[in-house]
């Protein structure tokens, strides 16, 4: 086992709010620059660019398929998958429940699927920056049923942070862990939100621009940079460990 540096929250050209420079090729180049061993592309309610980032990366870095899903409560959760088929099927299901609001690129930005060779594959019509019509518990269940793993994104942040929106962690087993915002100190988060006690914390960059990739990260002590190992690491199995990297100095 060894320590791996992971940034598990990166947006791409498929997120309207992200730069059009966030192509698979650029994401991979910036991830290598930042010394990342493992990344996940988490676009709003969409997973499609993850496959092209994965193809471009060719294992360096390792790439998890991902999504940042906005639930009906307007809580944002990060969903991670090993295979490509499951998140792409879920993406279709989620898309069907999105409100019929077209994405006006002048207001919201472009939503484009871009191949590993920097070619536009397609544009997505409906605005992805909307909540799906499924409640949090249902979204988590669908992710887990398809072999994925879900954690709440930037729990301490407006908009979309679970603790800000819902005040408390929901009852039950979920979530095993939580992501905190890039600029939140771990102790600050644990003091402000006592409900996080016993939950490992992750930090991701939430990068929307190339320079932001790897600005915040999580270190993972695992046998390999895979989803299964990440799960085991978050449970602390067999000496595995998870530690969030340092917080950014200023909120940007």
């Amino acid at each position, binding site marked *: 086992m060894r320590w791996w540096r992971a940034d598990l929250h990166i947006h791409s050209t498929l997120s309207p709010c992200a730069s059009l420079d966030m192509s698979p090729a650029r994401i991979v180049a910036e991830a290598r620059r930042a010394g990342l061993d493992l990344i996940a592309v988490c676009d709003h309610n969409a997973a499609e660019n993850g496959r092209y980032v994965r193809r471009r990366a060719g294992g360096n870095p390792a790439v998890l398929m991902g999504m940042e899903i906005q639930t009906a409560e307007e809580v944002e959760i990060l969903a991670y998958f090993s295979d490509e088929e499951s998140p792409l099927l879920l993406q279709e299901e989620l898309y069907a429940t999105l409100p019929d609001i077209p994405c006006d690129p002048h207001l919201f930005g472009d939503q484009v699927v871009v191949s590993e060779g920097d070619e536009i594959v397609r544009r997505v019509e409906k605005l992805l920056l909307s909540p799906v019509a499924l409640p949090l518990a249902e979204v988590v269940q669908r992710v887990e049923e398809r072999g994925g793993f879900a954690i709440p994104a930037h729990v301490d942040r407006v908009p979309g942070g679970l603790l800000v929106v*819902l005040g408390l962690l929901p009852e039950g087993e979920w979530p095993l862990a939580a992501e905190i915002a890039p600029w939140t100190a771990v102790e600050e988060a644990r003091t402000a939100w006592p409900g996080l006690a016993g939950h490992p914390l992750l930090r991701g960059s939430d990068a929307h621009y190339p320079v932001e990739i790897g600005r915040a990260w999580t270190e993972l002590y695992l046998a390999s940079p895979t989803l299964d190992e990440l799960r085991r690491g978050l449970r602390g199995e067999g000496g595995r460990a998870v530690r969030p990297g340092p917080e950014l100095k200023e909120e940007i």
Partner: protein
Amino acid sequence: MELGRVVSELGLVPLGAADLGRGVTSGYCSDLLSDVLAHAKSGDLWITHQRHLNVIAVGKLRDVAGVVFPKGLCPAPDVVARAEVERVNLFSSADTAYEVAGKLHRLLHP
């Protein structure tokens, strides 16, 4: 003012058995439950679009007089059932949040 009078004046529909003898002192409008936890006061009538189960926990912790879901919104049956157990008064209103708040304010501050 007694909750029962507020309910009848505003035309609120109780979701489950409500303690209509409770006092309503003011109101609070927010869909961010962390904000409600930090700022709502005991006796407030809380108006929210949020229908997650945590609404019940937050309403109980802040000891609100009741929770009003505007625009005819109604939480899932498990949420209504939990409200009965925790004795949190839930109501639905056909009005928008703006209208519910406006009517409540006029009633409490004639």
